[in-house]
């Protein structure tokens, strides 16, 4: 296993947005109307820089082999690259040991792994799992399924009208019976940054573990699992594809003793120590949770994505997104008929802005913006409880990343003004 100390320190570069954009050739393309692409759907998935694309090609061209098996050169190289990627991810989030990084396919699988491997083993009927009203469906449905199967109690920290969580309620909802608090660090639908300190402190006080859904936070801000929520957490789930890496590679970080206490999620090759006709014994962490041939190439490409973000510096990434978001909040507020959901300041939200345009369905907004090249997401954002609380069927959502510019925000705003004129929005 590669140790963290073996990896070279990453050189920090000044934040040069023109230089960053050159690494993303897709940003130069046109959409079907002929307009230049303005990609503002980063909360759904990010674009990938040439460095990541090159790493995928390099692996398959020069090193491709299955890992953890052969003694031949290619297999040894592939194994080394795969384990180096694990170590890079570990260092990126402040994990104590690369063995605490489990490669999955996405955030959803990471959360399901905890539900199956930890919760099914350790929770009894009547035990409580606490989530919140602003969760993505991937942090709701696995717990509902577990509730129905095991008779646990599922409780929700409610959302306030401004899209923040009701922290007073959270203190009473998390009780002595709470065994796990599974909570997002940032809402994908509204951009709300959740003040994890309060929730983690309360969870610790009652002896509950904390799982953080970091799908929207890890790509966009510094995250250190040792100090997350001040006291640190127990699990962190996130996806590669929202942070410059390919689709199909996800991550679950867990504290080593907790991971060691868990049952495997899936059975098969690579996760066993021994297999006889009667029984099997499990391999050590993390192999225990990586049954079957893993997504080797994309894990290695994730390592390149982590290198890219580390070179920028996650402080710089967050600073850039805060500036863009602050500009966008002010710019969109001037567009006739626009209502922005969620907290009004960029300090307490990530680079996600959900909004509606008076009298125009989000689908129509997205369709007209597409003719301007502006790509946004419309719909319920896999967060139907949030839509229910806001009393809207859907919202339009613009979300930013490292390469977005204020010019692109202007394109969004002027596009919305045109949508308004087209559908006859009155101020």
């Amino acid at each position: 296993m590669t140790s963290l100390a073996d990896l070279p320190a990453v050189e920090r570069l000044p934040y040069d947005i023109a230089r960053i954009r050159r690494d993303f050739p897709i940003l130069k393309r046109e959409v079907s109307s002929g307009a230049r692409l303005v990609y503002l759907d980063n909360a759904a998935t990010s674009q990938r820089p040439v460095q990541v694309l090159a790493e995928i090609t390099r692996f398959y061209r020069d090193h491709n082999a299955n890992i953890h098996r052969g003694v031949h050169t290619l297999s040894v190289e592939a194994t080394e690259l795969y384990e180096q990627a694990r170590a890079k991810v570990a260092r990126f989030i402040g994990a104590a040991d690369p063995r605490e990084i489990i490669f999955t396919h996405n955030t959803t699988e990471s959360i399901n792994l905890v539900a199956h491997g930890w919760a099914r083993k350790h929770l009894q009927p009547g035990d409580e799992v606490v989530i919140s009203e602003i969760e993505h469906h991937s942090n709701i449905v696995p717990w509902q399924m577990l509730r129905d199967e095991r008779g646990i109690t599922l409780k929700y920290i409610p959302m306030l009208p401004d899209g923040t969580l009701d922290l007073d309620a959270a203190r009473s909802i998390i009780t002595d019976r709470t065994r796990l608090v599974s909570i997002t660090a940032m809402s994908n639908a509204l951009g709300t940054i959740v003040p994890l300190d309060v929730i983690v402190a309360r969870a610790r006080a009652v002896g509950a573990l904390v799982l953080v859904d970091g799908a929207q936070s890890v790509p966009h801000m510094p995250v250190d699992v040792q100090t997350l929520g001040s006291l640190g957490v127990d699990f962190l789930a996130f996806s590669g594809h929202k942070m410059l890496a390919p689709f199909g590679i996800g991550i679950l970080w867990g504290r080593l003793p907790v991971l060691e206490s868990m049952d495997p999620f899936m059975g098969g090759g690579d996760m066993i120590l021994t297999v006889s006709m009667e029984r099997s014994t499990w391999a050590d962490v993390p192999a225990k949770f990586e049954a079957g041939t893993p997504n080797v190439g994309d894990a290695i490409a994730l390592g390149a994505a982590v290198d890219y973000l580390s070179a920028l510096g996650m402080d710089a990434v967050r600073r850039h997104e805060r500036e863009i978001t602050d500009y966008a909040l002010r710019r969109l507020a001037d567009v006739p008929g626009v209502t922005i959901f969620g907290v009004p300041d960029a300090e307490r939200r990530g680079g996600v802005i959900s909004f509606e345009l008076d009298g125009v369905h989000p689908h129509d907004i997205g369709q007209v913006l597409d003719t301007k090249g502006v790509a946004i997401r419309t719909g319920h954002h896999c967060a139907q409880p949030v839509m229910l609380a806001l009393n809207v069927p859907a919202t339009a959502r613009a979300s930013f990343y490292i390469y977005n510019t204020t010019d692109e925000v202007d394109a969004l705003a002027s596009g919305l003004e045109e949508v308004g004129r087209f559908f006859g929005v009155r101020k």
Partner: protein
Amino acid sequence: MAESGLMEDLYREIILDHYRQPRNHGTAIEPTCSADGANPLCGDQVRVDVALVDGVVEAISFSGQGCSISQASASMMTEYVKGRDTAAALQGDEAFQQMMLTGEAPDIDGFDDIAALAGVAKFPARVKCASLAWKTLAQALADGGGSVTTDDGSR
């Protein structure tokens, strides 16, 4: 809009007219059959109430929420169906689904406004929006009610 041959294909004036002033929307009728339709991906919802007398649609009403395409299509559908018998209504549904596949407006009596939706075929993401009301109508007529979604693979 300037670069918008595509936009004109989709948002024809007659479509926006039905969207802004939907016909047979929320009308109080005494339905003999009803159905609810949903497009779970985008949150479009429509309810279709039909009053059948001797196999003829005597009155029809729709309600719900959705984008301009889904609402305009529902409005047009009700205008077409009203006064026609069940078989003609289902023929309309058949012709509409065919139009969504081919982008060609069928030569059917009463399809004048509806033909404006032919351009939707060029926007695969919006075909479900346009089809929802028709699918819901077919459900209402098929077995006296129930609910449909555009994601059940039945079409």
